[in-house]
């Protein structure tokens, strides 16, 4: 009986932990002036970048993770889908015309990042 109680309590806190760890997180924003590198390794670093409206900004994706999930990056609001060869810099130029938050993801929509236009 004792083991059941222990497993239940541990399991419950395990679930709470999973919820907190994966679903309640806040990534820091990084403000980009002209260009910035985003390292693709188990996600995107930095995950949230801030760019300026009506200004062309270069975002360089450098994939260091061999996970095939990450081999494509999709910025659907900017109609961009790029294959990211391993360890090679892939530059994307965007000139946002409106402000707002625009999410981007890997090709399978598992990993996410965000571009904030101000």
């Amino acid at each position: 009986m004792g083991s059941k109680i222990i497993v239940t309590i541990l399991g419950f806190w395990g679930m709470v932990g999973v919820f907190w760890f994966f679903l309640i997180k806040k990534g820091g924003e990084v403000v980009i002036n002209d260009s910035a590198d985003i390292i693709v390794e188990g996600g995107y670093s930095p995950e949230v970048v801030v760019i300026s409206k009506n200004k062309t900004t270069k975002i360089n994706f450098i994939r260091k993770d061999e996970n095939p999930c990450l081999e494509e990056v999709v910025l659907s609001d900017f109609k961009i889908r790029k294959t990211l060869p391993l360890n090679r810099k892939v530059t994307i130029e965007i000139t946002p015309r409106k402000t707002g938050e625009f999410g981007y993801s890997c090709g399978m929509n598992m990993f996410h990042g965000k571009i904030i236009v101000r």
Partner: protein
Amino acid sequence: MENSKRTFSIKGMHCASCVSVIERALKEVEGVFDAKVNLALETATVLYDSKNISDEKLSKAVSGVGYEVIFGKEIENQDEEKRKKEIELRQLLHKVFISLILGVLILWGTFPGLMDTAPEILKNFKIQFLLSLPVQFWIALPFYRATISALRHRTANMDTLITVGTSAAFSYSTFVTFFPKIIENIGIEPRPYFDVSTIIIGLILLGRYFEAKAKSGTSEAIKKLIGLQPKTARIVKGGKEIDISIEEVTIGSVIRVRPGGKIPVDGKILEGGSSVDESMITGESIPVDKALGDTVVGGTINKTGTFTYSATKIGKDTMLAQIIQMVAEAQGSKAPIQRLADIVSSYFVPIVIMLAIATFIIWFDFGPQPAFLFALLNSIAVLIIACPCAMGLATPTAIMVGTGKGAQSGILIKDAESLEKAHKINTIVFDKTGTLTIGKPEVTDVIGLERDEKEVLKLAGSLEKGSEHSLAEAIVTSTIEQRIVLSKAKKFKALVGLGVEGEVLGKKLSFGNRKLMANLGIDTNPFEAKIASLENEGKTVMILADGKRLAGLVVVADTLKPTAKEGVEALERLGIKVVMITGDNLRTAKAIAQKLGIEKILAEILPDQKEKEVRRLQFEGKTVAMVGDGINDAPALAAADIGIAMGTGTDVAIESSDITLINKDLKSIASAITLSRKTMRTIRLNLFWAFGYNAILIPVASGILYPFFGLLLNPIFASAAMALSSVSVVSNSLLLRRVKI
């Protein structure tokens, strides 16, 4: 100094030491800044000063250490990536075989009934442990790496589920192997599950292998388009012909194209002629005849003749480059239908982990004995069966195949949203001139009243000379053909939707439709019977008035496009209501519509009212597509739910349109809608499968059927189902390549 980077093949490499020898030899060449040699690809990539380093220098350096450079087979980035991918896939397949062979050997030694036939050595737990080690820590290493780097970002994905699931099975089995007594003491039969961990890894990797193979097919169309881009051009300079790389071609370069040759860039024919196969761009299979002054498109193939032409568009401005850009953009966009899948998949993996924990607790607390084993195996099954990839792949793979298939048939779709919207179209509005008709009207009749026909044509032609209207062009052309010398018009004024007015040879002339005459208070009754009979033939009648007196009629008719009738019929077969919109009067419009089988006509619509008419149809609850060809249509094209630009339309039309048809075949409109409908059907099926799979099989894996039917899902079967699920979604999308549109 000019920094360049190039990759070329190297022959004769066989071991890792070759790499350092060649790299050193290349780096020693003065002007080479860096050199990287890839043994697997048998290539060298060199960063060098292209002004001071010749091919010969590089070749000499490499041959000096016993290898050979092959410049002729230079490898472009894309090919290099393709080869890398192939090597990766081959390695993946090897890993699949190794893990499945080891897994089956372990299974043979552990599976009840089967194990009686197994050699004693396979029944030994420690041997099973040793057999599973390479699978868990070498073959599955990428899963661990991906999990660790994802955890650093507080993200979880497929790899996390597989890592947790197989690690749990492996850790428990290792504990059983080395401490069987402890397990026995708590009332559980000591049996390891190395077969589960190894076979799961093998099957998941097998799924990934098939998925990667299938996925490469989804971008086949754009790769084919990219492959159309020629690499060299034969230019004529100073009486000599030389081959240069495509990047060196400039606007105005004179290019020679020989029979069977590929046309390098867009341009205009200067000399000679030929027939050109444009099917790769327009989807039209019949070659197009080209003569002096005609435009040619880069990437198309010259058939029999030979010609020279002047380059008018190069680089990213060529039609092919623009098509590639448009397809790439469409494939990078997101369909609105994907939104739900997006939301679900962003929470999916953490929720599955929580469900696996809940499964463990429930089985441990309420399950039959040995409860721990039931809890362990069922929670592993939950982790393994969950397939977030299928949801992520369901929509984009179909969009990629659909837009690619469209491009191959000369149908360019702006984005995924347009592709999605097009399947809802139930009304199509055609602009008559230039869309249903060729757009080059000709003068068919001239009727004079109290004056000579030639004089009527002369006065009308002189007046229309300054006009940009397509009917004016027809009249001026007719005067040239009849060698009529035109006079200068003064006080010329174009009256939108009515006609023109001005002074010619001292006469105050008005030339236009009935409305114009009515506005001027001129009675057209004497001509009415004649006008009506001409209009009933589908001709446009323009009335010339000299002051307040009728002077004559100029009759113009436009030829219907050869595919117009078939195009309209094809749309009606799809259940779409066809509407014709035109500035012509009702009688002329009716005559044309009758020839095409169109029932609904919007006649006498001024150019700036077309947009309003489209909005009116939308207000009636219809989902409207507008088909137009150019500048006048731009606002209407933009207002419609789907704007379709026909033919080689102007840039303005392409900008404001959602679908651009490169060919002039009106049947392509029905094809575009069929493509949209079929793509949407594929997406729905994919999403239904992806959601249904997870919604049904996750509860089954957790053991929901056990209380009713005593059914449990072995984690090995869970991994087989998982491996199949995303492959089937991608394969279903690939089926779109075969649909007839």
